[in-house]
């Protein structure tokens, strides 16, 4: 997990910090998934999970965000009770909702990819919100539906009916995600590897 981008920031963070951030956010996703869920209609309980997944991407960036979600999924697969509702095991990944879990990792990566590339002027909550919503539409919902079709033998239209239950919750969670991510970046301005060489450190 060597950090591949040669950062020009003054304080170059060690890979140890990268690993700790990846582990910390994997744990954050786990806790968000375990904390009491809101059950709407349908088989998948709604938790803060997708909030935490996209937040991880928006805060850590593409590479570390993707790895953090991957670590979370792998930890659940080997038996830590970290999937929503305290489930765990490889059975969940091959189960009906497994597609969502795989979509999480890619969505966090894409969200981070976009947020990393936001120009400084556009770096605000609405842009992060758009990045999160776009990523979850591209990966979480499509792969989630594919999982329902493959593993639960639903038809695509039935899977769509299940999936659309989450849309409103998704928008709300993405708003919260964007506000939190923006605030956390204000608190820790050197979290993301900035692409362009910075001229001056922003006044903290």
């Amino acid at each position: 997990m060597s950090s591949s981008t040669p950062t020009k920031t003054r304080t170059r963070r060690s890979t140890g910090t990268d690993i700790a951030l990846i582990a910390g956010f994997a744990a954050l996703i786990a806790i968000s998934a375990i904390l009491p869920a809101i059950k709407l209609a349908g088989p998948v309980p709604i938790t803060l999970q997708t909030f935490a997944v996209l937040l991880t991407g928006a805060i850590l960036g593409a590479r570390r965000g993707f790895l953090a979600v991957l670590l979370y999924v792998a930890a659940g697969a080997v038996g830590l009770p970290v999937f929503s509702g305290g489930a765990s095991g490889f059975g969940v990944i091959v189960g009906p909702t497994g597609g969502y879990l795989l979509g999480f990792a890619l969505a966090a990566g894409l969200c981070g990819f976009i947020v990393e590339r936001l120009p400084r002027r556009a770096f605000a909550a609405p842009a992060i919100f758009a990045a999160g919503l776009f990523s979850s539409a591209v990966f979480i919902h499509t792969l989630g539906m594919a999982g329902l079709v493959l593993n639960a033998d639903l038809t695509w239209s039935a899977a769509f009916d299940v999936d659309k239950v989450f849309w409103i919750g998704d928008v709300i969670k993405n708003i919260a995600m964007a506000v939190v991510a923006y605030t956390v970046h204000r608190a820790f301005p050197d979290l993301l590897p900035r692409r362009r060489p910075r001229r001056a450190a922003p006044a903290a």
Partner: protein
Amino acid sequence: MTTLPLGAYRPGRTWLHRLPAGAKLLALLVTAVVVTVVRGPLSAVGFVVLATALVAWSGAPLRRTLRSLRGFALVAVALTAYQAWTRGWAPAVETVGDLLGMILLATVLTTTTAVDDLIDVITWALGPLRRLGVDPARVGLAFSLMIRALPTTLEIALQTRDAARARGLGRSPRALLVPMVVRVVANARATGDALHARGLGDD
């Protein structure tokens, strides 16, 4: 106070416990492929019976096993009803039976295998990926750090919630979420510095 059911591992002396973790993990992966290939409701029922027998043998506490299946029960009922309605009983039994069997088998794995052993297996299995730039030791380190971070993060979440409530902001997402995430980042950085000080995780 919420307690984290960390580690479903139950020490024991059965043959299942003594089997190497790698063998069990491999068996689980192979089974997952086999049950999706083998069709028909009868094999699914047999699979569930077999998996149940293994759970009983592994000495998994009944109450905890049932509790872990509670979440799946909702899915199972909805899925059975849907499949039976659209495609008849045979596919319904097959789909839900296969899923239930896999979940039971995964329970057997986690009951009879310590998480540390599983992490060792993963670290070992990632060996061939070294060429692609994956460092198995770092992956193992990330796993250990995450497991350590779980109780800490839960505590942070509960403390932030209490703090927000004490300020009368128990319903404000900002007051609930921002301090939690800030503390998670700060914690991770402190851990990173501690690793650095011990010469761990760096190039």
